[in-house]
């Protein structure tokens, strides 16, 4: 018997196998030493706690929003906004908020005693509180399973809606109306998730149109105020709908994104000269602006509101204009701008470019897109993308064979420089000596820098020499001065004559004028 256990090489004490909770069942390492039942309880508890926190947070924000709204609109409007959310089936059982946050927890405590019931109620709990407390969020972010992600996004949406309410406060009555409409619209959009992207776009555009028509009549045709409100409405709505309408699964946006990305990557060899871009990147200010432009166009993907995305494109364009202006010293025309933008897009390879363009086209306020300055830059970006997709040898002034060779990676074009010693593998042809005059831009830059460094070195040497010369000169000057001083000293030696003695006893010229000294007289006595 004991032999057999040895052969197996396993000897575990019974107690180690048992559930750590001491319930008498066997435990499992995968469940941290607990039996299935105890593990489930533990897990549920932790899970519940996490969910509680999320709910509490969500509710806090929700309440803040409502309070902010109520304070702006007075008590009667709050009841309105609530009654307005009533018709939505999910929102029907809204209890007082303080209750809602406690309810699931107390229920949980109860259920712990009854194992069979628990399963059912947990499932229920997963649905009921979230629908009860945040119907809006549920509708908007129903697809996101992770609480931490939804929390993060809900933080942003809540910030945006807070701003929105702030903004509407200034409008008083119409503000209430706008808020009501926007919320109703977002809720209605939640039921249309299955629609295609074009239908969704249609819905949003219809909403913009209706709202702006109404605003137009309210503001008596002041298009500036209407535009201001519409900007805010767009921001509010699109922040909330972003998740469900950006690059939706019903479209092939994602496929196009990938295709464009591959295409741009395959065109990595295109140089600034081939595109005839009038930007001289060797001027530091210009390359600075090029980098900024690239950053801006990449940043577009991180924005949620179509208008913010447009702003990124505009910013990018402004940097390009600055770069061209520095290079050419005159305002950039479209002839300069478009090639430069193409170059920037090629260099940046912005993420999800097609999705972003589609998103802006579908959900941006149309008045902005069609005539405004932002619209112009956006159109140019569309042109740049279209050009990149269709690009062939002819459009780069290359022969078809050359283009093919570069595309397949067999060869790569080099920038011609006078001292370029970079060997180029041109199919082993003998004419390499002529083609070696071309060097990859990076290498050219490297060469350039090296040259600069060596010239700097030479100049430094020269400086050192000059400094030594100066030192020698100084030393010799010092010596000269010393010598001169010595000479002068020798020539005019300093004789220190003893000063005339002025003792009374000495004989001097005037002494004879003195009366003779008195001689003592002897008085004979």
């Amino acid at each position, binding site marked *: 018997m004991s032999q057999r256990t040895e052969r197996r090489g396993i000897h575990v004490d019974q107690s180690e196998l048992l559930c750590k909770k001491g319930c008498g069942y066997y435990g499992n390492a995968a469940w941290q030493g607990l039996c299935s039942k105890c593990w489930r309880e533990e897990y549920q508890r932790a899970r519940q706690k996490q969910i509680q926190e999320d709910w509490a947070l969500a509710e806090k924000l929700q309440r803040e929003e409502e309070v902010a709204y109520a304070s702006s609109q007075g008590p009667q409007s709050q009841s309105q906004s609530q009654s307005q959310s009533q018709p939505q089936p999910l929102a029907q059982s809204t209890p007082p908020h303080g209750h809602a946050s406690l309810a699931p927890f107390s229920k949980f405590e109860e259920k712990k005693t009854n194992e069979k019931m628990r399963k059912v109620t947990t499932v229920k709990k997963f649905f009921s509180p979230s629908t009860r407390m945040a119907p809006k969020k549920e509708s908007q972010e129903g697809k996101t399973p992770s609480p931490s992600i939804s929390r993060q996004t809900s933080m942003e949406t809540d910030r945006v809606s807070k701003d929105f309410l702030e903004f509407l406060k200034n409008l008083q009555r119409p503000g209430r109306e706008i808020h009501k409409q926007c919320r109703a619209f977002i809720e209605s959009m939640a039921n249309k998730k299955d629609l295609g992207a074009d239908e969704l776009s*249609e819905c949003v*555009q*219809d909403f913009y*149109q*209706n709202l702006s*028509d109404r605003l*137009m*009549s309210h503001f008596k*045709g002041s*298009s500036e105020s209407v535009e201001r409100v519409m900007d805010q409405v767009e921001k509010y709505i699109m922040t909330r709908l972003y998740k469900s309408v950006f690059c939706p699964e019903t479209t092939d946006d994602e496929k196009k994104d990938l295709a464009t990305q591959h295409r741009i990557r395959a065109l990595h060899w295109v140089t600034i000269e081939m595109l*005839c871009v009038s930007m001289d990147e060797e001027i530091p200010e210009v390359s600075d602006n090029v980098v900024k432009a690239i950053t801006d166009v990449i940043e577009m993907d991180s924005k949620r509101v179509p208008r913010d995305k447009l702003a990124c494109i505009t910013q990018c364009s*402004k940097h390009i*204009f*600055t770069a*061209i*202006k520095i290079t050419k*010293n*005159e*305002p*950039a*025309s*479209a*002839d300069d*701008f*478009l*090639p430069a933008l193409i170059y920037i897009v090629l260099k940046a390879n912005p993420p999800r470019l097609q999705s972003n363009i589609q998103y802006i086209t579908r959900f941006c306020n*149309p*008045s902005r897109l*069609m*005539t*405004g*300055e932002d619209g*112009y*830059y956006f*159109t140019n970006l*569309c*042109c740049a993308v*279209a*050009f990149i997709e*269709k690009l062939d040898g*002819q*459009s780069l002034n290359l022969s078809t064979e050359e283009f093919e060779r570069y595309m397949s990676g067999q060869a790569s074009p080099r920038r011609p420089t006078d001292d370029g010693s970079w060997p180029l593998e041109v199919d082993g042809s003998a004419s390499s000596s002529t083609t070696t005059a071309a060097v990859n831009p990076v290498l050219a830059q490297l060469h350039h820098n090296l040259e600069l460094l060596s010239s700097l070195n030479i100049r430094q040497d020269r400086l050192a020499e000059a400094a030594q010369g100066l030192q020698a000169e100084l030393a010799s000057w010092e010596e000269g001065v010393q010598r001169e001083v010595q000479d002068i000293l020798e020539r005019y030696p300093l004789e220190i004559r003893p000063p005339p003695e002025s003792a009374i006893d000495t004989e001097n010229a005037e002494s004879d004028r003195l009366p003779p000294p008195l001689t003592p007289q002897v008085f004979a006595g």
Partner: protein
Amino acid sequence: MAAGGSRSFSFKVVLLGEGCVGKTSLVLRYCENKFNDKHITTLQASFLTKKLNITGKRVNLAIWDTAGQERFHALGPIYYRDSNGAVLVYDVTDEDSFLKVKNWVKELRKMLGNDICLCIVGNKIDLDKDRHVAVDEAERYAESVGARHYHTSAKLNKGIEELFLDLCKRMMETAQADERLKGGGAGQSVASRRGVQIVDDEPQAAAAGGCCSSG
């Protein structure tokens, strides 16, 4: 983008033409009144706006410059989509540039029909001694395609103001005729998703000529 309300209009005008015919100089002269000036303050000359007041109506003009190089020709439709007017510029000393204009006209008429107001502009008349495009030929051509012809010089500031003013007036007429057509068409046919535009009655709208009856 058609005009906004009845009080103000906003128009998109697209600038087409081969490179080097002076599109940029033309528009810079119009919007900044400068020519080859070192003191030009604007950063760019590809998108410029101008506010006008024509017979008491505010007009916002957005002028879109386009890249004139041959390799960007195919991108034209992206630029001129939704534009109200097109200014087609050629260089009077360069016959090729005039042929390009003819190509543009054909394309624009095919894609946009008669909704777009066309202006054919012979620029650089200060170089008249080197002229290679005959005046009457150009004018005859313009008339045959329903466009107006202008002669300009950005250098001498000749004819530019007139060109844009005339273009604006024509675009206003087109827009007003369009609105009346929509208003008269009982709404349903034009109830596109952009909604029905409510237009105030314009007493002087009759100037555009009897297209009302077609509704």
